[in-house]
């Protein structure tokens, strides 16, 4: 009975405090990064970092008015109908922005690759040429359900399911991406990065608060993720700032001297959605790798048989 009374008193005292132990901004909720604006600014808009309100509205209308097939580009026509499944961009909530590209600045494009990076890419392409269907390791990471191309960090809008959930406790900010169910738990306690011998697909993230902004520093990448040709030396700084009840401004700066001649920054608006995030168990339901390899083996067999017939 004494215990119960103490508990009630404790609850009354604590009810007066804010949702989080420390007085940090609340980034929690379910958010979408879906955008009508591309990562890189179209060449015709060089130097034009912002649309007028009218231009932005027209651009949004044009982008959202494309058919799913137009949006799929080279992946059509042997593709299921995206809009049937509610996966088309026009069927989800999209952030409003006046930007002409996600990459900020006068150029709005990823900086040129270093000669070293160009050489690396050329060698990688040469190695894979004619071998794209040899085995699972030749297939894209996304098709293998290892990591999604937009999963990050840094996080980018994806073709669909561009959603994430943020949950915080007093010492951590956890970012759960729908694809592929990764929970990046960012400590904000000042602890140091992992030793350099421990490298991870998603690197190692450390956060701290600068006023209203969560600043996240990520290093310790492997060379397997290869975000836009980058190396294990990729260094990422992300900033999350809650603008209002329904908006977080997410900004990242990517720096890899072995890849780009200078760092570059993109800004993406995260808009609140109702959600929920559903489980995206990719590997468990993945038929893509098996069916792709099986298809390739069938085509090779058919070609070999045709060649045998011809030589007879």
């Amino acid at each position: 009975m004494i215990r119960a009374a103490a508990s009630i008193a404790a609850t009354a005292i604590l009810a007066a405090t804010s949702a989080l132990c420390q007085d940090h901004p609340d980034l929690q909720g379910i958010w979408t990064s879906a955008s009508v604006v591309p990562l890189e600014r179209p060449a015709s808009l060089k130097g034009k970092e912002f649309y007028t309100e009218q231009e932005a509205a027209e651009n949004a209308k044009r982008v959202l008015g494309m058919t799913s097939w137009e949006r799929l580009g080279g992946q059509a026509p042997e593709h299921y109908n995206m809009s049937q499944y509610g996966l088309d961009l026009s069927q989800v909530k999209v952030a409003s922005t006046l930007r002409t590209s996600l990459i900020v600045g006068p150029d709005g494009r990823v900086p040129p690759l270093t000669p070293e990076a160009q050489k690396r890419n050329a060698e990688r392409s040469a190695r894979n040429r004619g071998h794209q269907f040899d085995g699972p390791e030749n297939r894209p990471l996304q098709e293998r359900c290892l990591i999604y191309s937009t999963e990050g960090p840094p996080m980018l809008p994806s073709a669909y399911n561009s959603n994430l959930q943020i949950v915080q406790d007093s010492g951590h900010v956890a970012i759960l991406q729908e694809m592929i169910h990764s929970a990046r738990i960012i400590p904000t306690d000042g602890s140091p990065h992992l030793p350099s011998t421990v490298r991870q697909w998603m690197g190692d993230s450390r956060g701290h608060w600068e006023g209203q902004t969560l600043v996240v520093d990520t290093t310790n990448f492997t060379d397997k993720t290869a975000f836009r040709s980058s190396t294990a030396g990729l260094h990422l700084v992300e900033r999350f700032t809650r603008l209002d009840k329904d908006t977080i401004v997410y900004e990242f700066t990517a720096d890899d001297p072995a890849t780009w001649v200078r760092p570059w920054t993109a800004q993406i608006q995260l808009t609140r959605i109702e959600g929920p995030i559903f489980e995206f168990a990719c590997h468990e339901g993945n038929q893509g790798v098996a069916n792709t390899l099986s298809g390739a083996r069938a085509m090779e067999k058919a070609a070999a048989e045709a060649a045998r017939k011809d030589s007879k």
Partner: protein
Amino acid sequence: MRTKLAISSVCAGLFLAVGPVRAHHSFAAEFDIKRPVKLRGIVTKMDWINPHSWIHLDAKGPEGKVVSWMIEGGSPNSLLRLGFTKTALPPGSEVVVEGFQAKDGSNRAVGQFVAFADGRKLFLGGSAPGAHGDSDK
């Protein structure tokens, strides 16, 4: 600062096409554009799974024999968020499918267009964006 979609004239030439999106994986390696299929069958079950949902159906083959097919579709997560559930495609439903068959010759196809046989659209239907109303191909 919210920007409403305004009706306006097109500023020709100012805007270039947005780059294509990338769905989970390219189907060109898996399905054969030279093997189009058109099927009518009875749904036996639907797998509401990722990265792609699958509709299993029994269709009558050319000799009248029943053939079981798997039809590949999209991630169901968006449908679930819109309130669709398993009941949206109950076993026993009759559907028509247009798509392309697997390169390895198995009874698997990507479902370019899937609809109920009685003309009702499946889920959200159409190839046009939902915001502009549907136009089934």
